[in-house]
């Protein structure tokens, strides 16, 4: 039993080297999971506002029919870069930031498994987005082919800055893969004694599966952009029928990445909601094991449904049927999840703190997005809906009121743990209610104009859509402004204003992260805690 001495030795050693560094170097050279988590989260928020500003340009142009504010080519650049930024710059980094902050604390680890690589994967991102954004100001403008960069839009008909787009996606991908490797290895190798697989918090479980998806599909995206590069600049014909290739092959490769990517953006959200709902229901999560199995089956199914994005490309009927039925299968495990959240609340003693408000909004609104997805999965019906605003409504319900709302719920839930102070609850409630109302004014009418046939990604539209579009734009501006309340709240929180909170913060909260002091110390769990 000489462990106490060796432990003491390490502690003094640590005091020597691991004091909190000051100034800019702290952030540039950091290997601390909490610092890196903070960097990711702020980066994601800045990108969220940037991509949001582009959405404002789009909505301003669509406020009334006709072309009044921007050139069509610039409009296309806005839709493209808005999508790229929100997917790769806002949602994914925000989840990675949460993973960085929370996974080591939740599993009782001292840090992420590979702390220096962790820093590398973060700092690649700002550079990648500098490249992407600066291409907007170059000759010919930035990418204008949609975030899905379908060939031949991205090959024959794109401008030369496509090369910069390709390489910025390459390094973004490298960042995601390194981040995902770090998460997987941390979860496999760094769990505290007693933290068995089926005791892991669901946020950890969902991120484990997300990380697997990332490592599996980000390299496929790298392959897709590489083929676009060689087709455009080096005379290959992967996506050109004259050389024996096929533009539809681009869509197959892209969506083989793209569909798992959709779940990369929603599985961590499921994890977050599964943490928050039990806390404010003061009941353990209903059906923990079924949640784990549901998450796993969603992830596995995500590899065999990609062509439901391509029903109108003229695939053989057999393929259409297969992808339709496989897609519908996903609604089973997703239904299990929604059922479990509702069952967790059933006869719980509910209270409605801000994280719970966002979580409840998530459950209702994400389910709307899921149901419209089920409609889109029906092949013959999709022939009508494809490339209309119905699709836009669907994925914005899933990604904005789904992924983004879950991120906001997570920030409100864990922010007091990070700062040690309660955030400004009045501002938070304003943020919630303004966002909730405006986001529905923004996205709900899109279902109607979509069903009536308004095409997406076009800067002009037929007169009969004018009234709805006016309201959509008003909702859009209101939703954009509402996020400024969030910005004000976050700045206030980072300046450590507010009431000090206890270690547990929320009355019903359970888990290792709620057993350490608030604010969480710079280094947690130097020696692993024992989980009973």
């Amino acid at each position, binding site marked *: 039993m000489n462990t106490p001495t060796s432990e003491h030795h390490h502690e003094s050693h640590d005091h020597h080297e691991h004091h909190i560094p000051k100034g800019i170097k702290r952030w540039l050279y950091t290997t601390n999971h909490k610092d890196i988590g903070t960097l990711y989260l702020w980066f994601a928020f800045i990108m969220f506002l940037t991509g949001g500003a582009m959405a404002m340009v789009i909505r301003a142009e669509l406020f009334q029919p006709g072309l009044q504010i921007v050139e069509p080519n610039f409009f296309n650049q806005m839709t493209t870069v808005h999508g790229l930024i929100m997917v790769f710059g806002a949602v994914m980094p925000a989840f990675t930031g949460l993973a960085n902050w929370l996974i080591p604390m939740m599993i009782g680890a001292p*840090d992420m498994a590979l702390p220096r690589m962790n820093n590398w994967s973060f700092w690649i991102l700002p550079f990648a987005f500098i490249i992407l954004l600066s291409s907007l100001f170059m000759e010919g403008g930035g990418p204008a082919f949609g975030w899905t960069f379908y060939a031949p839009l991205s090959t024959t008909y794109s401008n030369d800055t496509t090369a910069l787009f390709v390489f910025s996606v390459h390094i973004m991908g490298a960042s995601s893969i390194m981040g995902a490797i770090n998460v997987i290895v941390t979860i496999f190798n760094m769990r505290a004694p007693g933290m068995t697989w089926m005791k892991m918090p669901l946020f950890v479980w969902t991120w484990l599966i997300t990380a697997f998806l990332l490592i599996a599909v*980000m390299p496929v995206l790298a392959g897709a952009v590489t083929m676009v590069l060689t087709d455009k600049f080096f005379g290959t014909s992967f996506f050109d*029928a004259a050389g024996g290739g096929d533009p539809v092959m681009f869509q197959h490769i892209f969506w083989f990445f793209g569909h798992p990517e959709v779940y990369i953006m929603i599985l961590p959200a499921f994890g977050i909601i599964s943490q928050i709902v039990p806390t404010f229901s003061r009941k353990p999560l209903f059906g923990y094991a079924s949640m784990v199995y549901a998450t796993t089956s969603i992830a596995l199914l995500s590899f065999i449904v990609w062509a439901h994005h391509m029903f109108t490309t003229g695939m053989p009927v057999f393929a259409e049927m297969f992808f339709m039925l496989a897609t519908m299968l996903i609604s089973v495990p997703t239904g299990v999840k929604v059922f479990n959240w509702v069952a967790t609340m059933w006869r719980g003693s509910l209270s409605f703190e801000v994280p719970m408000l966002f979580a409840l909004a998530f459950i209702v609104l994400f389910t709307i997005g899921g149901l419209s997805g089920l409609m889109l999965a029906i092949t013959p019906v999709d022939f009508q809906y494809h490339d209309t605003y119905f699709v836009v409504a669907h994925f914005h319900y899933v990604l904005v009121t789904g992924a983004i709302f879950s991120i906001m719920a997570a920030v409100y839930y864990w922010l007091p743990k990070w700062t040690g102070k309660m955030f400004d609850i009045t501002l938070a409630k304003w943020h919630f209610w303004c966002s909730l109302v405006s986001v529905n004014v923004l996205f709900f009418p899109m279902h109607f104009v979509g069903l009536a046939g308004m095409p997406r990604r076009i800067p002009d539209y037929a007169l009969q859509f004018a009234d709805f579009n006016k309201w959509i734009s008003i909702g859009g501006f209101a939703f954009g402004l509402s996020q400024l309340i969030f910005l004000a709240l976050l700045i206030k929180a980072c300046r450590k204003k507010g009431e000090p909170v206890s270690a547990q913060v929320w009355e019903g909260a359970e888990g290792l992260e709620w057993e350490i002091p608030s604010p969480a110390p710079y280094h947690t769990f130097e020696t692993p805690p024992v989980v009973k």
Partner: protein
Amino acid sequence: MSEKEYEKYYVPAQSPWPFMGACALFLLAVGAGNVVIETTRGKEGFGSYILIAGFATLVFMLFGWFRNQIHESMSGLYSEQLGRSYRQGMAWFIFSEVMFFAAFFGALFYARAIAVPWLGGASNNQMTNEVLWPSFQAMWPLVETPGGITTEAMPWTGLPLYNTIILLASSVTCHMAHVALEKGKRQQILGWLGLTVLLGCLFVFMQVEEYIHAYTEMGLTLQSGVYGNTFFMLTGFHGFHVTVGTLILLILWLRVAKGHFTKENHFAFQAGSWYWHFVDVVWVMLFFFVYIL
């Protein structure tokens, strides 16, 4: 409580290398993008300088980062648990590389099994053939494209077969080096590992010969339709991986010569040999699907 559970996990203090690595990737991406635009569009610019600066930064960063790492490892800061982190990290990295090659193999299979037959009128595409490409006949290897480019198919005998034997042999010698390391016989490691590096170099040399032959005598180029595309992209990325793998093995050889690695502590060696075996497996797939079939 056993002592193992209290084992200290080494969390490094601040490090400048990752940030430098991010700068390197930034310069590489900007440089590569500009070089591509400049060379293919005949424009003037600074792309190649930026690319070289990025490459130099990357090499400098890798050198510094690894020196740091080796120093830490040799001064005994690492634990068994950390070793597991590294091994698992490497395994997942190799999985990501597998998926990168899978994208190009996927393109090969799609072109071969779907795109080309459909252009020739298969499935429900009879009118595609009759209206758009009336004289086109589906075949693989695609030696005449719908657009009319003709080329020759690369046979699997000769150079590719020799290269297969070379690379398979190198996997064996690499394994022998590992066996020797586990026995702690340094001279044997140097011999087997040196042989592996030479075989790697020989492979790359033969591959270059094959490319020259394809370009100058067969008319098989990167531009000759989807057969040439998949051929050069798959063998090209593989050749790049062999080059990187050979460099890794060369550095390992130098480290063995300097007296690094012990029976118990040789993660870098293991990672390098895993990488080499991975490159070998990819080649076997390539030889089968690109050359033979």
